[in-house]
């Protein structure tokens, strides 16, 4: 459904230096896929997410959605793309307009993308909030008036209201407390199983990514250093960087002895 063909991105820094944020990369994501993208800060994973969503144009190669260049989509095609691919971002505080209610934010995709009337959209909001076990009363509040975990639920609701076929989660749980993280990860997994949608889970945290994915892509310094089946990448890493990364987690993890 989304295909990256040798997609790369460079930025022009000050003094005309060229920053290679992402080196040419191939990736195919179909509905039902569960792809985990692991990388530390500066590895190029955020750039990749922005390219996949059409928020930026690749400087080389292409990102295709049903044979159309994602960043060039417009009108109905763009609406169709937004309906199929949605994002749950990292920042729980600033991903909502502080002057508007949470309901307004969640309702927006239903109005703009699905073309529902306000009444229909409101019904859809209630439905999606109920499926996430969120108190609908909270939706009349402003983003600053609910907790970070609740805000992230609303962010998920905003993405799920259009029933996307691919959900991109960009560091969606990194800013949350451990106790909330688990619940949010479960929501993602439930959604994927219920709807058969694909999930692209982008994170620097390996355990959470591994939990949600079938396939792992490891990024480092703008390159994909390794990709493959989750258990293979986690337990028998081929690339030295991946080995070091997994080693660091092993060191901090309870099953140090069992996995070694």
């Amino acid at each position: 459904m989304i295909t990256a063909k040798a997609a790369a991105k460079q930025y022009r820094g000050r003094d005309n230096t060229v920053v290679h944020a992402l080196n040419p990369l191939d990736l195919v994501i179909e509905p039902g896929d569960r792809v985990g993208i692991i990388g530390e800060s500066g590895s190029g994973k955020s750039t990749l997410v922005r390219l996949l969503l059409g928020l930026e144009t690749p400087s080389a190669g292409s990102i295709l959605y049903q044979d159309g260049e994602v960043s060039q989509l417009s009108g109905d095609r763009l609406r169709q793309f937004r309906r199929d691919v949605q994002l749950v971002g990292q920042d729980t505080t600033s991903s909502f307009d502080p002057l508007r209610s949470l309901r307004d934010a969640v309702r927006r995709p239903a109005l703009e993308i699905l073309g529902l009337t306000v009444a229909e959209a409101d019904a859809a909001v209630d439905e999606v909030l109920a499926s996430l076990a969120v108190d609908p009363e909270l939706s009349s509040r402003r983003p600053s008036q609910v907790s970070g975990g609740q805000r992230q639920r609303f962010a998920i609701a905003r993405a799920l209201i259009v029933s996307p076929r691919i959900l991109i989660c960009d560091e969606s749980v990194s800013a949350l407390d451990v106790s909330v993280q688990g619940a949010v990860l479960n929501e993602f997994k439930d959604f994927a199983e219920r709807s058969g949608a694909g999930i692209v889970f982008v994170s620097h945290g390996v355990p959470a990514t591994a939990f949600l994915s079938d396939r792992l892509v490891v990024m480092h310094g703008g390159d994909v250093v390794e990709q493959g089946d989750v258990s293979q990448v986690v337990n028998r890493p081929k690339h030295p960087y991946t080995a070091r990364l997994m080693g660091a987690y092993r060191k901090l993890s309870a099953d140090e002895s069992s996995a070694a």
Partner: protein
Amino acid sequence: MPGDVGLRAANAVEVADLRVRYRTPDGWFTAVSDFSLTVSSGQRVAIVGESGSGKSSVCMALAGLLPLGAAVEATTARIIETDLTARPTRAIPYQVPGVSVVFQNAMNALDPVWTVGSQLGTAIRGRGATSRARARVLAGEWLERVGIRDPARVLRARPYELSGGMRQRVMIAIALCSQPELLIADEPTSALDVTLSVDLLELITSLTADLGTTLLMITHDIGLCRAYSDRVVVMHRGRVVEQGDTEQVLAAPSADYTAALLACAPSLGQLNDHRLTTMVGVS
């Protein structure tokens, strides 16, 4: 330097019934209550909790760095040789002698307008009347000690010209160069990537072991406690729910909260689990 250990007080931290409150427009907000902790010299203790658990308030209270609007009360609060309860509160606090602090993000903690050399130099000279030139030499040595390969360049650099890992190393050097008896590390690596975070904690623990410095680490990451602490204190909503030997607590938690916290963190071992355990009522 390890030889100094014998001369030090038996307990680096002795705190009983600590309460920290903040004045807010809506009245007093209690961030920490009934907090008691004794840390003997040379121990590595971790305080674990989620956001809002009061762990940072504890750390700032023990370092004597809480702002004026905060009220700290305790029946006992002795840090090294200082009785915190007897200290007057100041708009700009004084250092608690023998206590250094490492913060979460060196970008904020280091002074942006001064060079690394100047900041490290004043910290070295702050402890004794070392000459400027001598301090410069010592500063270079400290940078090497925290694993910086080109100390001459870094000494001339300002914090924003360094990479995140380098900045964090510089901060560790500044905190430890006065050879403190207690190092309080407030989420020292939360802003960093996991490989770097492991490297830095290795560095902190080995340096503090060399210097005989007691380490009090605040973190939300159970993995870090597991690997780098002897004792652990679990906090929830401003109270201690459990404390004890790290291995014991993590292997067989006695408090429900600790057990739940352990269960809901995904780990590499549970790849095939269908769902994560979640905390009821916490969201």
